């Protein structure tokens, strides 16, 4: 068990569309006035429902800015 967040928002790509924190507020939150997003929670391996919603957020992001952290075993999910 590690405290590292397993979902990341690439700050260079995020443009603040806000879909991720609108639909999955348990994991994403507003980071600044621009509406940029960041994650604030770790997605539990056993929480399949939440993992599905995070995968939807990843596929919803108009900038492809969200991903499972590399080296994490969820990397290939939803591909």
């Amino acid at each position, binding site marked *: 068990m590690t405290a590292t967040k397993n979902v990341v928002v690439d700050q260079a790509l995020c443009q603040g569309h806000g*879909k991720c924190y609108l639909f999955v507020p348990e994991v994403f939150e507003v980071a600044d006035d621009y509406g940029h997003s960041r994650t604030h929670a770790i997605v539990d391996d056993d929480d399949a429902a939440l993992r599905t919603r995070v995968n939807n957020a*990843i596929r919803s992001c108009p900038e492809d800015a969200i991903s499972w952290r590399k080296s994490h075993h969820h990397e290939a999910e939803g591909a």
Partner: protein
Amino acid sequence: MADSMFTSFDHRTPPIGPDGTPFQYYEALRDVAVAGNPIGWSEHHNGFWVVAGYPECHEIMQNHDTFSSAAVTFPAYQTGEKNTLMLAGMDEPVHKKYRSLVIQPFSPRQATDTEEELARSTNELIDGFIANGATDIAKSICYEIPGRITALSLGLPQGDGDRYRQWTDAMAHLFTTDPEGAAAIVGEMHEYFSDAIDEKRRNPGNDIISMVIASELDGERLTHEELMGFCIVLLLGGIENSVKMLSTALWRLAWDVELRRRMIDKPEMLNSAVDEFLRYYTPAGVGRVVLEDTEVAGVKMRKDDIAFLMLPCANRDPRQFPYPDVLIPDRTPNRHLSLGTGIHRCIGTHLLRVEGRVVLTEFLRRIPEYELDRTQQSVWATGQVTGMVEVPIVFPAGAR
């Protein structure tokens, strides 16, 4: 076949189908795009590329080094300015500097703060016609709310919202049919905003105009032209799309009883439904200017060519959206392009979502049963930003 569809294509005057919208035609063009011709050449407006596929539109929007926003409105709206349209028509690095000045008032938190005023305003408008049992909802609500909210954020009287609509109409539509009439109306607008800017200089308030007046760019205060540019683009951006999104959504909910009942049962679904309305009835496309010879999907584009991104087709592309021609209110993921992607992502996104959710929630709460008035016509406006502009309805009369 494919050729002929593109050749005669004019995004400003699509044929309206039996459902009262141009989407049957857009779907046909989309079918051509998906069959292997995502980009074609139209002979209108001195010739331009029509980009009708999702991946191609997405690629071009992301590639702002090769595709300039100078032709974001195409043919260009007549705003009476010497310069290019503020923010929306600008490229980097200038665009980013200006954008940073007005980001804060459009933050998600600020959008949420307008919720109460939006609900109050919507209910006040409903009070005005609920005893009649009939109204044109486009005119009585959808035209009113965006004008009021835009006035509020600019720090101008909400009652002026009415005039704003006339001005946006002149800049975006009237200029094609009556350039002189449009120029006169746009002149009025310049006078109004000049006075407003002078007034805010003397008595600054907690509003966007005052904020921009007080800000500096590279150590310099903004010029009158720049301040005017902000007023004009916030007016265009705040009103045109929102009016049509709201009118078209309420029109759909008037006859799609099943969808309406689902919304009433699960108002929280409106969050995702607003995005789905924006995808399904995409109000607008955007233009780009090619800055250097390039190639997209095997199509060679030359420097100075215009590429018009037909987002209403791209947002129905089955390569991106399963069942693209079905309106799925809780569709997810929903990576539609109606609010842009990349550096020009709509600055009012958060406000628009709150606007859509609150207006639809309040309307359905007060008037859960209503239908189209079949003795009259609903009217779809064409132009670069399209959507319903007249939606006469009837409902059981009486105050609720």
